[in-house]
């Protein structure tokens, strides 16, 4: 099974440290998200992993084989889609894919089959004879994905694949990425659109100023950040937002909630209630007991989950180098 490991990676450009001691790993079938502000070191890390750049120290391995020292051997197992790349003028979509298939050393019927497969997979069939330069942004991204897949790589590196895409194209791209993961490819993807990553990623690394500030599954990172935020709110005597769901309607719901001194703000949508109350777990437990005691059939009572965007905003400071 394909295993990708980034091990204590450093990359310096003169006095600037673009990547500082970055480590993470993921395996086949996983979509690993790489999140960070502009200039955080995402693209540099991805380029090193793809064998296009050389680290100042550290290593990246694909199944134990270094992509730095054995770049020539590993390159063909990697598909890389950069965030910004040009296309060739006066070439059709089919010719473009055929060219890269040739460059990867695929010959004859194997090449035809590979091109047909990616055209089919990326739904480019109707555009085969269109000039590459006439494609829309979304179609060009699909073509870029097709190019990265034409040699059937084990590891796929996608740098900002959803940048500039409309909502429909983003949804379709997400579906393609999930499908590829199900086919057993290891996928590293970076994006500014955190909602997209949250939906498709099994694990993420958040990077700022070249350093990884958090890594793990999306759920673990969110839990950890949420616990930290709640602790901080409790110590500061602040409130948290709690989501409450009722098993059945209650005629006096608004009055019951208004009479509770612990509750600061309330929003009621039928059986769903969002309220703000003390961050102290004991105070919340007491509130829950009182609400049940006054006849509310509470089926769910929990602090609201943080989104990946909230987590990202909490963990990073927006500093750039």
């Amino acid at each position, binding site marked *: 099974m394909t295993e990708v490991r980034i091990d204590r990676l450093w990359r310096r450009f003169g006095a600037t440290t673009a990547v500082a001691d970055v480590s993470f790993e993921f395996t086949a079938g996983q979509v690993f998200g790489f999140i960070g502000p502009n200039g955080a070191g995402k693209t540099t890390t991805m380029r090193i992993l793809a064998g*296009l750049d*050389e680290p100042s120290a550290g290593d990246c391995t694909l199944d134990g084989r270094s992509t730095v020292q054995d770049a020539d051997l590993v*390159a063909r197992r990697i598909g890389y889609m950069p965030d910004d790349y*040009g296309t060739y003028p006066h*070439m059709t979509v089919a010719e473009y894919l055929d060219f890269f298939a040739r460059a990867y050393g695929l010959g004859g019927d194997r090449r035809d089959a590979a091109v047909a*497969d990616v055209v089919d997979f990326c739904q480019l069939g109707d555009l085969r004879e269109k000039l590459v330069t006439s494609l829309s942004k979304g179609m060009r991204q699909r073509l870029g994905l097709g190019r990265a897949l034409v040699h059937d790589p084990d590891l796929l590196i996608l740098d900002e694949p959803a940048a500039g895409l409309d909502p429909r194209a983003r949804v379709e791209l997400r579906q393609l990425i999930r499908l590829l993961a199900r086919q057993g490819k290891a996928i590293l993807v970076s994006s500014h659109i955190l909602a997209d990553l949250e939906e498709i990623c099994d694990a993420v690394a958040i990077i700022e100023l070249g350093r990884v500030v958090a890594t793990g599954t999306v759920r673990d990172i969110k839990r950890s950040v949420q616990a930290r935020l709640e602790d901080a709110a409790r110590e500061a005597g602040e409130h948290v937002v709690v989501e409450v769901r009722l098993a059945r309607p209650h005629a006096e719901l608004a009055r019951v909630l208004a009479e509770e001194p612990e509750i600061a703000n309330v929003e009621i949508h039928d059986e769903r209630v969002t309220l703000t109350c003390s961050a102290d777990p004991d105070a919340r437990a007491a509130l829950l007991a009182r609400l049940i005691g006054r006849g509310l059939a509470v089926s769910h009572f929990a602090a609201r989950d943080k989104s990946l965007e909230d987590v990202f905003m909490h963990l990073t400071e927006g500093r750039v180098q």
Partner: protein
Amino acid sequence: MTTADAPAAVVTRRPGIVRRLLDRANPVLVRYVRQQLRSRAFIVVFSLVLAIATLCALSVAGQVSLGDTGAAPALLGLLSATWTFAVWVFEPVSVFRAVARERDDNTWDLLRLTGLSPGRFLRGIMLASVLQGLLYMAAIAPFFMMAYLLRGIDLVTVALALVLIPVAGWCASAGAIGLACLGYTKGLRTALTALVAVTCGIIWFMSLTMWLNFEHIGFAFVFFGIGEDGVFIALDFAVFWVATCLVLGAALLRHPSANRATGPRVLAFLIPLDVAVVAFASDPLASHELFGVTGIVAGLCAFVLGIFAVAEDFAVTPRQARDTARMRWFQLPVLFAPGGARGRVAFAVLSALAVVFGALSEQDDVLAVTLGLASYAAIVMALGDLVGRRLYRSTVTTPFGRRVATVIVLAVLTFLAVAGMGLGPKSPLGLLSPLPGLWLLGDRGSDYVAIVLVPGVVAWITMIAFGARQTLTRDPHAGAPGGR
């Protein structure tokens, strides 16, 4: 995503020979030809060449009667002027832009990932240029034959034009490809585009004098002094010029951490070998003496290779460290400094060959010149080491900056040497720089050779000392934060 799902009939079909040949063709060649055949610029230029050639032929045919000996050279001149614009100006600029655009648009990175070597990429562009040159030739050849049939020019002249014009164009294209690899930044590549366009334009414009007076000048200039051998020497030179441009260009495009010196090293040995063969086989050069010519060429190659080795990277990269660790024999060359270790061994062998050939020569000044070349090459390399590893290491951090710094130091030395020679044409100050120095050595070798040899030997010792020190303290990750 695999061929496993492909229909069985497709998999088992035997491809035809044309298909198999096309499969093996250079992918860049296939792509570039496809692109160019659709490119508006190519279609316009090709159509213009064809239209102008037709107009010239029709107007000459309409005005002259058979046996008018002045019309044929005039027609040949006009046709050549038209044709040379396409292959001496348009083609070189096109291939330059093709290579430069690949790097400007970051598509070169995508190609690198496919495992396509820089050499194969450049050969693909070059072959496409050759194919297009042949396309122009096919279009213009019937008009050349018409000029021949008008009488007044011989078949040799027509054949020479049909061979030399495209060959010169391919040389120009190869030079443009080499230059396109030189630009590290987009701005520099833009400036180089202008340089290529202007230079090719000026050469074409100057050639118009010959084409428009073809009746009087013809190809006679080719034969002045060198006879028929000159054509073969010119073709031989063209082959090595194209090879040199492509090999050096590919070395520049190769990843900085990869071994970039193999091609240049092989070429540096092939050039003196070729010169020896040509000198042996060719009457005019044979009269000059085989050993002397070969020795000096070997020395020049060692000199160029030495500069190239200096221009390589100065620190051991992880890939080079791996090579060093895997191959025991590689440890010894590292003594001359790690960056371009094997290139430097080749340089040492070539220097030795130059001196041996110089010693075998019957003329004393040849030995002085070859000794001087070996010394100057060692001095330039040691100077490069000083600049790259010592003086500017902390202030000039990029390889490109170090190369510029080395060239500046050499330029200053050359200026001092030339200024010194202003004091007197044979002033020893001229020895400060290789060019006037070699002239002085050729002129009065016995007086000056010792002056050049001493710093040459010191340079060798310096290089070995640097190399030994770096070898003993070698740590490829030293200096990197968090390095192992």
